[in-house]
């Protein structure tokens, strides 16, 4: 019988399997970026695409061919920013998913579970229908969504802390309650507004899209997401303990309360950025952590880096599919991710008898 590689505890040539996996995924991520940039609705040759990138990055090559013009713009201002944004958003959502699942101690949690998506929708709706945030200029929807997401996340924490310390159950309850309040207000605004164009804009925005990628946003978001990911990589021990609960953690020398609050704020920031730049892309933050857990186990030392890289790679390819699956038209990424991702996830769930622990299916 063939010996199966044990990814959870295995060792490959003297290095733990998960480190090998991280290295492999890093290489895959770079390859994905380099391949994805050559794919698009406009047919460009591979050498031209890399010519533009080389020129822009290092000033190598002919400025007249690669420095300006339609080809240069497509590669440098449309394709590459989208891919970098996919990298950042995918990583951010996947890591935020892992952290949320640990904070609320519940495997069905996703980055939006504590009302963040409803808060973002409320912000976006207010911006679209009421013109709130017009002072922010062209990206007022995104900025209002960011503010909505961040405020709700703070409110959920505050509510959960009233009359006792916030634990995972109180957070979940506060999140659910505030989330319904926000949805109700969004719906109210839409209903009163009765503006067809507005409704379409909101719907489209809620489906998520990476089309609005701009370098000046990416310059903030990508470093931020990478720093947050590295931060959570260093917090694996506390993330592990969160899953054991408050009481056990105290006996292991850690009072989770403070950490939970910091983690929530940091995640809210990342999710807010993701919402700001790409709308609401569901599913990534829920599914990627689960798939990684199936193969590598629950230990966050392995989970966080692997999930982060998988999230990036997944979203890059999902976006490529969005751009190319229907000629001359784009499928909103949120729809595509769920249409393809959900069946894949169900397949994995059935095949690997993965039971989140406890009872095995």
């Amino acid at each position: 019988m063939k010996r199966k590689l044990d990814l959870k505890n295995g060792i490959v040539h003297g290095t733990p399997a998960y480190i090998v996996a991280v290295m492999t995924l890093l290489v895959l991520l770079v390859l994905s970026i380099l391949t994805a940039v050559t794919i698009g609705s406009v047919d460009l040759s591979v050498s031209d695409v890399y010519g533009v990138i080389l020129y822009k990055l290092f000033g190598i090559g002919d400025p007249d061919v690669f420095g300006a013009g339609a080809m240069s713009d497509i590669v440098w201002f449309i394709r590459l920013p989208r891919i970098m944004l996919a990298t950042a958003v995918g990583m951010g959502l996947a890591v935020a998913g892992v952290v949320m699942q640990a904070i609320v101690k519940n495997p069905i949690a996703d980055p939006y579970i504590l009302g963040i998506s409803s808060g973002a929708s409320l912000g976006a709706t207010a911006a679209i229908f009421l013109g709130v945030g017009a002072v922010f200029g062209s990206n007022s929807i995104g900025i209002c969504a960011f503010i909505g997401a961040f405020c709700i996340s703070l409110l959920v924490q505050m509510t959960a802390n009233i009359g006792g310390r916030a634990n995972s159950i109180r957070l979940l309850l506060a999140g659910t309650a505030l989330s319904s309040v926000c949805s109700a207000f969004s719906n109210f605004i839409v209903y009163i507004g009765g503006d067809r164009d507005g409704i379409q804009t909101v719907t489209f925005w809620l489906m998520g899209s990476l089309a609005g990628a701009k370098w000046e946003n990416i310059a903030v978001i990508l470093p931020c997401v990478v720093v947050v990911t590295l931060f959570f990589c260093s917090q694996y021990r506390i993330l592990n303990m969160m899953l054991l609960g408050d009481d056990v953690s105290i006996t292991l020398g850690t009072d989770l309360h403070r950490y939970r609050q910091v983690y929530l704020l940091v995640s809210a920031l990342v999710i807010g950025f993701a919402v700001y730049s790409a709308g609401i892309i569901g599913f990534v933050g829920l599914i990627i952590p689960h798939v990684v857990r199936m193969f590598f186990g629950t230990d966050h030392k392995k989970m966080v880096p692997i999930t982060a890289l998988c999230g990036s790679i997944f979203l890059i390819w999902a976006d490529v599919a969005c751009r190319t699956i229907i000629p001359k038209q784009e499928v909103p990424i949120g729809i595509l991710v769920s249409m393809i991702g959900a069946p894949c996830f169900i397949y994995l769930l059935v095949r690997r008898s993965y039971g989140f622990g406890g009872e095995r299916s």
Partner: protein
Amino acid sequence: MNIETSGIEMILGGSQILKGISLSATGREFIGIIGPNGSGKSTFLKCIYRVLKPTGGAVMIDGRPLEQYRVKETAQKLAVVSQHNYYNFEFSVEDIVLMGRSPHKKTMERDNAEDYRIVEESLAKVGMLDYKGRVFSSLSGGEQQRIILARALAQKTESLILDEPTNHLDIKYQLQLLDIVKKLGITVISAFHDLNIAAAYCDKIYALKSGQIVAGGTPEEVITSRLIRELYEVDATVRKDEFGMLNIVYHPLHVRKGEEA
């Protein structure tokens, strides 16, 4: 190590659960706490291991009040094995035991070879070394409880608090677990349901009823027919067997009726 409590009081939800509990444990003593359901055993132990903050009284560890220690420091001094250990996520046995090393780690510090050595040593002590790579939630109750004990051992503490750790375990595992603990030769405070087992392992026993200590001393002094009647409202005979062990035999109602007739 020296654990001393003086006049611990606890009010939870308006009712007084603990009414001034004072006891002490030093050196290699194995202290047992017995009492009926709801007598406050668990609440009292939680006050010692800091999950609850007593409303009155003080817990002293090595002569210093508990609040003066950081949570991390107490976790270096006392480890806890409690009854409920169900986790919603799949951890490997090694992951679980490795968490026992966290009191000795700085926030950003990685695990080193020494930690992994201690994990193996702890697993070996509870006879579960072969289970290192297994998924914790797939183990039986007895195996899980031994893993939790291994985690406590990995904390390398001078004392251990057991909160009815042998609940749900069959008799083989109950004895096995307590034998391992007894062999450690550290300060142990444990809550017990089973009086025979308490008598077999404890150096000193305190009997708790309605949040008060009603008796304290060696098993022989404490566990008597009169006390069992007082605590549990049950008739029992206490005698010594040929090994000099206390042996408690309960008299269920139907047996007594038979005697009378």
